[in-house]
């Protein structure tokens, strides 16, 4: 058989596919208009579906919360399940929005993907409930403003934060001849010196081991907390302009570059938790991680060090929020469940079961008993008031990927100077932020 014949056939098939595309264009548009029904949906009551995180302790909280709700509301049952997610909950939620089968509420919506879901028409603005804006303001206070979308509406309820701090392994510190009670970690240069001592003493192979994978979100656990500390809480992008291409940003980058250059941090991706496994002496994580350190690591924590000592430290919030999805029919019930699940009582249960910080302005006073009994968590509650969130941008994921790629290239693998990489990333991010 002559190949010319076959390839022309393939071409004709491609042509058919293109014609199919024309049909697709006709069929792919709006099949029904629901705009008029939007108002009635916000009051509709009835059974709803929700997803919660697949983290073990959160699953337990979620089950208890749903059971409590269902017992009191037999006519508005909640069908709850774990979010079907591995690394990629965003793709599952994004696909579900497109297919119109997203649940009513997702109790683990990452703020970074909210603008994208909103652009897809997948989210219900919570201001459309009469008491929506007021409820959020009363519960969270001014910190909630960070989560406002570019159209001025709230598409997410700020739920809980996991302020990132610097954990350290007291046993390894002692082994390296460092004082585990008063570690020298107040400034970034002290941090670097401590890292050198740890590795040179032979106490540990890696002073710290942040993931070197290229996922867009990895920078939240190396660069961003340090940058927040350095700048007293500046976001990566502010007023449509990248902020990191300055001395404060480059200083963090240079510090990490030194860590990698001097082999104080591994360039490999560790499968698992390097800190919990004793492979690294320090770790950047939030209070959620404490449960996994139990029985493995004798840990201590300090605020993320900035370039100079400071009284009020800032860090990355690593918040997870709750969003309502437009596929939801009984939005009235969904809103009631949302308020129920973020009530003072349920927030208290979330705090005691998971150690994560509900985003309430009265956090330390409302649960004073808990914090006296668990002094280890007191610092996190204090820190939760001074956190910085990811910027609310349409292209947020792309912005972070751009930053991550520049970071990999210059800081981790040293294939480009930090100046050039930051300049390039900053220019590209400015462009992305300008796009609608």
């Amino acid at each position, binding site marked *: 058989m002559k190949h010319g*014949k*076959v390839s022309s*056939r*393939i071409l*004709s*098939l*491609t042509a058919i596919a293109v014609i199919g595309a024309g049909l*697709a264009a006709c069929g792919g548009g709006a099949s029904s208009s629901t705009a008029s029904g939007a108002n009635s949906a916000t009051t509709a009551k009835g059974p709803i579906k929700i997803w919660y995180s*697949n983290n*073990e302790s959160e699953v337990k909280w979620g089950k208890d919360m749903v059971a409590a709700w269902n017992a009191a509301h037999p006519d508005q049952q909640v069908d709850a*399940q*774990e979010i*079907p*997610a*591995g*690394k990629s909950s965003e*793709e*599952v939620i994004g*696909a*579900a929005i*497109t*297919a*119109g*089968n997203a649940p009513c509420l997702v109790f683990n919506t990452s703020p970074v993907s909210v603008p994208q879901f909103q652009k897809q028409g997948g989210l219900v603005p919570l201001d459309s409930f009469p008491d929506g804006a007021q409820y959020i303001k009363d519960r969270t206070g001014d910190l909630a403003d960070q989560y406002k979308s570019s159209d001025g509406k709230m598409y997410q309820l700020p739920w809980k934060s996991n302020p990132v701090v610097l954990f350290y392994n007291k046993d390894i510190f002692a082994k390296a001849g460092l004082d585990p009670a008063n570690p020298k970690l107040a400034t970034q240069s002290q941090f670097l010196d401590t890292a050198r001592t740890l590795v040179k003493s032979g106490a540990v192979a890696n002073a710290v081991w942040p993931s070197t994978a290229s996922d867009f979100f990895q920078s939240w656990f190396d660069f961003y907390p340090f940058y927040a500390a350095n700048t007293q809480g500046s976001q990566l992008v502010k007023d449509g302009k990248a902020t990191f291409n300055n001395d404060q940003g480059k200083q963090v980058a240079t510090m990490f570059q030194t860590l990698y250059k001097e082999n104080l941090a591994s360039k490999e991706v560790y*499968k*698992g*938790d390097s800190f*919990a*496994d004793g492979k690294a002496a320090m770790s950047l994580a939030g209070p959620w991680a404490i449960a*996994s350190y139990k029985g*493995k690591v004798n840990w201590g924590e300090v605020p993320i060090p900035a370039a100079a000592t400071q009284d009020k430290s800032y860090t990355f919030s690593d918040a997870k929020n709750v969003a309502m999805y437009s596929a939801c029919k009984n939005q009235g019930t969904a809103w009631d469940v949302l308020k129920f699940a973020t009530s003072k009582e349920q927030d208290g249960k979330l705090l005691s079961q998971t150690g994560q910080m509900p985003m309430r302005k009265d956090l330390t006073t409302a649960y004073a008993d808990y914090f006296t009994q668990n002094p280890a968590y007191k610092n996190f509650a204090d820190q939760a008031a001074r956190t910085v969130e990811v910027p609310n941008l349409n292209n947020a994921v792309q912005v972070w990927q751009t930053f991550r790629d520049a970071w990999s290239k210059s800081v981790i693998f040293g294939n480009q100077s930090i100046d050039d990489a930051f300049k390039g990333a900053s220019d590209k991010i400015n462009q992305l932020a300008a796009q609608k």
Partner: protein
Amino acid sequence: MSIFNKAPLRNDDDGARRPRASAPEGAASEAPTPGSVPSRKGSSVAKRKNLGVGSFVLLALGAFVFLFPFYYMFIGSLQTSPDTSVGGAFPSPANITGENYSNINNSIDLLKGLANSGIFTGGVIFFTVVFGLLVGYALAQMQFRGKGFVFGMMLLVQMIPFQLLLIPLYVMIVRDYGLSDSYLGMILPFAINSTAVFVFRQYFMQLPSTLFEAARIDGASELRILWQIAIPLVRPAIVTAILLTFIGPWNEFLWPFLVTKDQAMEPLAVSLANYISNIAATASNPFGAILAGACVLAAPAVALFIFFQRQFISTNIGSSVKG
């Protein structure tokens, strides 16, 4: 990640060649009967099988390279703490535990996952074999208009990366056909396996076309010819296609992951991949937990393969497969 798992293709066309060249009336007697397919290799096979020491060493070395990671996987899955030194490649009584396996058993419903995988894979195999046999036979032994079109389609389909179709396909299956959280939704995109069609076509082409011409002259319907003559002759090809089709859906992760939101519907590959990426990290020995998950996923495929390997290998109907 491809939905089109590759299948072996018989590279031999002598079946089609030989009888066509001979006279039509002689064809019927020359046609092979099921089970005793003519062999061209005949008695001289033995003479070729004198293998030098060099080749044997090469094979042994290759087998070591191929099997070692699996051995290492198994050893690693039994370790209490990961041992990456050379000594870690040998079982050490001090460092052995079944805990990694019991952890999996505690967090995943293995039986349910196995059943879901079975239904998913079984459905795919069913559709693949039924459709594949029909179109494979038509392409090999029938003359009809549009044959070249079908053939070209088969080739094109194999070149398209699944990721290109992923979201439109997902939207279509879930939004338009309403098949989320259903076995049919999982099966549908895999039900066409162009490679399997290719295999069937290849095998049917080896059968002498005169055999079919004669049956047609006798007035047998095409379906009857296919069912009573052609299929019995290509039984080894069907076994091969089943085994190779099995690999695709059994190991597929991304599609069922998207389609199943309900954990009770998840195939084993999805729940184990979830286990590996989420839960294993918090286990006391994450590497051991990951490797144990890998062993659980690999075991059924490998077992099935070893069980059927005789069938699997005697795929060429050109050689006598009786022994």
